[in-house]
């Protein structure tokens, strides 16, 4: 379960103010709100990528705000998979290497077959040997999602996963998140995409 209380993070007076959020285990929740209201900031805080100015964040009962940087990083690899809004693939690695990067960096033996299966479901099999700079926007976003799906974390957080994608790519990403949720993964997504928000169990408006 994800529970955030009175979360505040301000950047020069703007940002997130006293936000509360609760997402139950196995739920698929959407976060909506006007641009600049702090959706990405909230996801960054919930995934341990950013410390809040005040407030608490509990992930499965553990207050991650008080965790060390090392433990928060481990949390992202083992408990929460985070698809960022910003382009976050490693430019010098191929799509396949990017997908397997979390496993490789954790010194786990890379499961190439599993990576290829995920890639097939995301329709990026032909792009596995390509470098990020050679991918279209839709392909890039799908590789980012594949990297998170490889981790098989119980929670997936996705920030605007379908923004700037063509209808076909957006549908693939949406379907994959729904499919993961049906397998029991808790999904939390910030989005402006009405189709994606309609697919969630609940939409939390933060402003």
């Amino acid at each position, binding site marked *: 379960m994800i529970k955030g209380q009175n979360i505040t993070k301000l950047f020069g007076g703007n940002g997130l103010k006293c936000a509360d959020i609760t997402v139950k285990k196995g739920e698929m929740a959407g976060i909506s709100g006007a641009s600049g209201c702090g959706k990405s*900031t909230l996801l*960054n805080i919930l*995934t*341990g*990528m*950013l*410390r809040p100015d005040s407030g608490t964040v509990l992930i499965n009962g553990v207050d991650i705000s008080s965790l060390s*940087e*090392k433990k928060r*990083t*481990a949390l*992202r*690899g*083992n408990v929460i998979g*985070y698809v*960022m809004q*910003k382009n*976050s*693939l*490693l*430019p*010098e*690695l191929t799509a396949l*290497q990017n997908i*397997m*990067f*979390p496993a*490789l*960096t*954790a010194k786990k033996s890379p499961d190439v077959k599993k990576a290829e299966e995920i890639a097939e479901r995301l329709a990026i099999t032909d792009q596995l040997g390509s*470098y990020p700079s050679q991918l279209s926007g839709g392909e890039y976003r799908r590789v980012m999602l594949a*990297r998170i799906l490889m*981790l098989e974390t119980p929670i997936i957080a996705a920030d605007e996963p379908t923004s700037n994608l063509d209808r076909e790519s957006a549908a693939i990403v949406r379907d994959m998140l729904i499919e993961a949720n049906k397998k029991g993964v808790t999904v939390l997504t910030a989005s402006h995409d009405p189709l994606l928000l309609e697919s969630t169990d609940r939409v939390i408006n933060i402003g």
Partner: protein
Amino acid sequence: MRTDKYVLQVISRSRFRSAIIFILFFVTTVCLFGTGLFTGNLKNGSKKLYGQTYADMIVVPEAYLDNTKDMLFKGKACSIMFKDDVLSGMNGVSGVEAVTPQLYLETLEMSCCADGGIQIVAYDPATDFAVSQWTEHSKELSGYEALAGSGGTMKKGDKITLFDREFTIADVLDETGMGYDNSIFIPYETADEITSSEEYKFMFGEKTGLVSMLLVKNSPDGDIKETEAAVNSALAGSEAKVYPIDELSADLRSHIDLMTAVTKIVSAFAVILAAVALFAMVTITFRQRRRIAGSMLSAGCPRGRVLKYFLSEYLFLFAAGAISGILLVCVFLLPLHEEVKAVLEMPYKLISLSGAAILAAKTAAVDMAMLALAVSFTFVGILRTEPAMLMEEQV
């Protein structure tokens, strides 16, 4: 992902950035190691001019002073001759511990030896204290035995014909860095026999009873100025005068010091420029590195591993640049050693292997310090920034 694989892939994908960093380390290494080796060789060659000299004083005719300097320190041909009766006048002079004569017979063009020819020098094995510094065999030389300087291709046991007589090379001197490197030494008695022969007199003129120089060793507790005065007093009336080696080598030493200083200043400028360029390169690519660090952290890669990836890339380029630089210097400077020595016209002797290894280690340490300085700001920036903020555009 294995660090070496990741690093090699990053380097091959970021060729321009990697090439610039490699070149900066390469240039720094060539400057530091190259100039260090060059000035080290100069200092090594001129060691006998500073501190421990191979002779404390030299007796030569005053008119031949410049010729003496050229012959001693630049290896030029010697034509100094004066009567050897001054030798007997040196006996018992206060402060003089030992005196030994040397006679420069001829400079011969030989296929085995340097382009400028090789000097045939006669010395007295019984009283010698100069040649013995570069070979233990000098005291035992007799008959048709000869000692070879290190500049030629001769080896111990080789036969060589000098003045129609066959000599056996009894030993090869260690490199001296001076004119001795292009000389062959024969015993005084043998030289006497040669110069007394009619053939020699016909070919080269009368040289019996002549000497080129007397090398003087000051007694350990003797004041060199007092000994100089005493010797000059004993030589009164003759054309010869005694000169302390320090005095003879003063110009050369100041020349070497100046050349060393200028070389070091130029090298220091090159290193500073390379360090600034490396710092700029690392800073310019900082934004890209921040995003990559943020991306790795978002995927659960520990911060220590992120820094290890970055540092390994720099270390790989540092190692490649440093090793290439040292190899280049060795490949160019070592085979051209004799040529460099000839062009310089001053004492020049290769430093030892351990000396070169220490110099290489010092060069690597400077490279490492430069790298540490350049990357420390980047690394501190990455360590202190929240992962989400690393992904932001503004730096």
